[in-house]
């Protein structure tokens, strides 16, 4: 399960960021922020012509000693980042993909809310609940 989940706007500012409360929150903010380097590079590497067929899931962005950072970019260039503990070997690529899919579905629901203003930080309870379910439960 994830230790940090973040939704980043098209312009690269955070829309939503949530990490396990037991650890230093700031550190995760930095991890997510630095991972945007790789996301940007991966998006720009895909040619303009191929942009339509681009896969949304970007895979493992970069490994650190302690964490694995995965990325996902929607067609509207909203980025999802999931940070997983490196020691957690039970999570395979497929599980990560399905987490991103869930996240995307839930994000779509948020966007469909007529009272949500695209570009504002996300304050949806439903979204929060879904993210909580994907996070490592603090024991």
């Amino acid at each position, binding site marked *: 399960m994830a230790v940090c989940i973040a939704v980043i706007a098209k312009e690269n500012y*955070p829309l939503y960021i949530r990490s396990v409360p037991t650890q230093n929150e*700031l550190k995760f903010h*930095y991890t997510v922020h630095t991972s*945007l*380097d*790789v996301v940007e*590079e991966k998006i720009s590497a895909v040619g303009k012509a191929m942009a339509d067929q681009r896969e949304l899931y970007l895979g493992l962005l970069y490994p650190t000693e302690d964490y694995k950072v995965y990325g996902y970019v929607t067609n509207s260039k909203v980025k999802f980042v999931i940070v997983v503990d490196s020691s957690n070997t039970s999570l395979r690529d497929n599980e990560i993909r399905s987490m991103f899919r869930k996240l995307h579905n839930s994000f779509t629901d948020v966007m469909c809310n007529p*009272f949500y*203003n695209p*570009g504002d930080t996300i304050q949806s309870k439903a979204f929060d609940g879904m993210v909580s379910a994907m996070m490592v439960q603090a024991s």
Partner: protein
Amino acid sequence: MMSPTQWDLPPELCCRPMAFVALTGLDVTYNAIHRAIWDAFCANRRADRVPISFKVLPGDHEYPKCRTKRTSYEWYIPKGILKTGWMNKHLNLVPALVVLFYELDWDDPVWKEKQSECATKVEIVRTSLQGRNTKVAVVLIQKKTPLPPGEDLVASERAASLCNACDLSGKSLFVLPHTDHLVGYIIRLENAFYEHAQTYYYTEIRRVKSHKEFLNKTTHQLLFVRHQFKIAFFSELKQDTQNALKYYRTAYSLVHELRTHETNMLEIKTMAGFTNYKICRLCFQHNTPLDAIAQFRKHIDLCKKKIGSAELAFEHTAWMSKQFQSFGDLFDEAIKLGLTAIQTQNPGFYYQQAAYYAQERKQQAAHMCAHEVRYPTPDPLETLSGALDFYGQRAWRQGHQSIDPPDAEKEKVGIQALQVKEKDVPHSELIIALLSNAVAQFKKYKCPRMKSHLMVQMGEEYYHAKDYTKALKLLDYVMCDYRTERWWSLLTSILGTALRCSYLMAHVKDYITYSMELIGRASTLWEDQKSRIEKNLIKVLMNEVPEAEPDCDPASAKAAQALWSDRVSLAGSNRFTIELLNVGILLQCKARFLSPSFHLDDPVQLHLYLKADCPHPVRFSKLCVSLSNQVLYNQFCVVEESCKSQDILEPLSQENMCLVPGKTRKYSFKFVAKTEDVGKKIEITAVDLMLGTDNGRCVLLNWRGGGGDAASSHEAIQAARSFRSRGRVPEQHAQWDTVSIQASTMIISRVPKISVQLSHKPPALSNEMYCICVSIQSNEKTVAKDVKLTAGLKPGQDANLTQSTQVTLNGLEVCDESHPALLPDIAIGDLQPGEKVEKSLYVCCVTTGPRIFLFHVAYTMTTQAEGTDITCKCHKDETVTIETVVPFDVAMKFVSTKFEHLERVYVDVPFLLMTDILSASPWPLHLVSSQLLLAPTMVALDEPQSQVEHVVLQTGECASECFSLQCPPVLNGTSSVASGQYLISWKRCSSCADAPVVTTVVTLSHVMVETIPLYVHAELPSFGRVRESLPVRYHIQNRTGLVQDVEMSVEPSDAFMFSGLKQVRLRILPGAEHEMLYNFYPLMAGYQNLPLLNISLLRFPTVSGQLLRRFLPSRIFVKPQGRQAEDASIAAA
């Protein structure tokens, strides 16, 4: 300044091992020849030369003693894995080959003596190398160039004898002639040396391998590792890197098979580290970087948890840090040699991780070495030799290999000594060095955010190292990146550190700036923290010492207090200007002109919005807006109030100069623009707001342009999108987010109150004087002075239009090309209120097509705005598009006298010219007259008179004329001749009587004129009747100057019987005419073809009967026999 530490890898491990060859018998100091030889060996050692490290040693040099070889390992218990001196010994002390240089020519006069001297020298070297497998070789330095092998019998004989004397094989004796080609000889020599060296290392490998059979797995585990390492190292010396890699890999797995316990953990890790280093290095060398990375990952995974003694945990992190650092170095080195790295796999990550471990080491050190303990005496880290015998062992129990330490007390003291030593390590320095390495790498691999993050860490480390200036510099540098990316949480954290730095340095300006930003809305601090910071800020503004920041080191905070007190007492330098470019602070400011443009007679209106985001109200003392191009306006845009410094504490919220948290305050400014600014842009260059007062501290906040910060433009967009923005907000409390910045406005001229009307009757007809009537009426309340009309073709259209358009005010005469296309500044004079003026303008358009005409009325007038008189220049433009069409189309044709269409005309044969004038004008045309101007090649048969004079043509009507003409003879048989011109004079029916008549000239087309030698024409009644005689008379005219022989025949026809000459040949005199009479007797009714008359000229075979037949009728209408046959026959006769 950093000396090598315990954790640095030994240089003999990191270098590339090369075969060691000792050169003896060379006197490089005093002998020039020897010097030259030595230089040739050691200079220019490029990659293409064999890898040997040479060293000059004296002939009697003592090589390290060889220990007596062990015959049995049965009772031997090894004391460690690898001796510290071993690698160096084989790199620099024990040569693979010793070369003895000796000056001796083959024909030396004292050969015998020299030979034995040489043999002695060889013997000395051999003795010194007792027990080693080192080879010995002899090089004879000779003055003479040797003969080709086999030719010099003396040489081969003496060489054999020398080999014998020295106990050398023939392969170990070399000759070095000292001639021009020294370098060439040297290169051949060193290749030979290299072979010898390789044999040496090969035997060494065999020797080490041979020990294996004596070892057992229980007591000799360490030796397995040692031997594999040695074999690998010798393989490297032999330049057999593939095998070296193989043996290092075995050594590496053997290291991890060793039994580990607290006492030998360090030794195992050290050796694992060494072996890992070698493996990675070789992998990079073999261009298999992925293998290197995989090995390193494996290494880290295996060693991560091998912490060893808990009291010395910092040693583990130090070691880990070093592992990452040295791998980073290897990676970086490989890149310099051509490897390509990528964004997600570059040395930066390893440096970053090394820095991370270094940080951890620092924390552990701070935690474990906090207690005040003096360095123990005697020094437990002291050894007899000054160095350790084995890598990775403890000085106080060298060679100890059992599980428990031999002496618990000694162990304790030793650990204490290490802890005390750790205290002196410059941790921050190490961390910063690693971080800056990482920054350099991430910069190279396009990771700007990672770079920023590392710079933040560097800044924080500098802060911990109390180097606040550098810390601030770094933090300030990256802050704007986080600001533009709008990661407020990160920005707040950085600002917090920056604020502490500036506090500890008592840096007033920075302190104020960072406080303001931390109080502002971008900061994610809690309200109580903001409130604390704001109180401090107010203190600073009142020139007092602020409270210390929490989380500051108490000692530093105390020092800072003193610094602040000094600042307070210091006079002057209490005025600060803070430029706010994209920086969001406790106040937000937005300025907007109410409109993107203002008319000159309207006052320019400017609204300035201020909003405080801080927890407490803020009071300012001055507010001014600076505008571009005119310093004149700035005086209108100032809000000022002299306030005493104690007022800052209890501001009254209803006051104008006080900002209440969360409330938007609006300031309106109004001024009248200057006349000379018409057409110019007025921009807000800056908004300045003064906090504090001149006698206390005063801070001038300076917003560039119309204010706003990194977040506001985004917020404005969000607000515009939001459903909340739809109305509902009372105008007075305009929602802050919806206010958009309008930092510039245009000054445009006053709206003219004048009407310009045009009356005309389009379309214009080409060439006519088209009349456009302009009426100008003033609706101004005052006199419009100096009214000027500019009228004509609008500039900027096709250049050809300018050529083909003329404009005049005089409608009585037709324009010519001297008239312009645009009449500028036609003076009209002054217009009283309500007065109306009319002007007629005549336009002559030569070509057809649309044209745009411009009527520009300019005038000046005086008006009042905001109580001042201003002179305004106003102008009004009116444009109209006028199409020009042709008034009529003229068609003409040539016809014969029988109104038959003519392709060509014949000399002296009369024909008709017909002209049709078809009106294309929508307005009726009055044709005044027409005239035919004939070319000399044509003559009129009668006086041609206009037949269309004073005809009025309505749209679509046509007027036709007919002229009878004839062509005089032409020189050669046929030619194309000009016909002349057709002039039509006309005008519009609607135009006034004295309007000029327009003459349109139509050039008539050319026509072909042909001369014919014979002219035939027939004379016959207009119709015939069945069975009644039809007399036909043919006239044949000779038009040449010669007598013509003419043959004529009439072909029979079914429709006619006839009488007359059927076939005749006759002769016609020049100019004479012959007449032939036939009586045709029609047999059938209806149109009947006449019997064909064939005429052929014997002199002009080209003139065929076909041509002549054209002059004759081809058929005739025959009526049926009527009842009144008598009458009909009379008529026929």
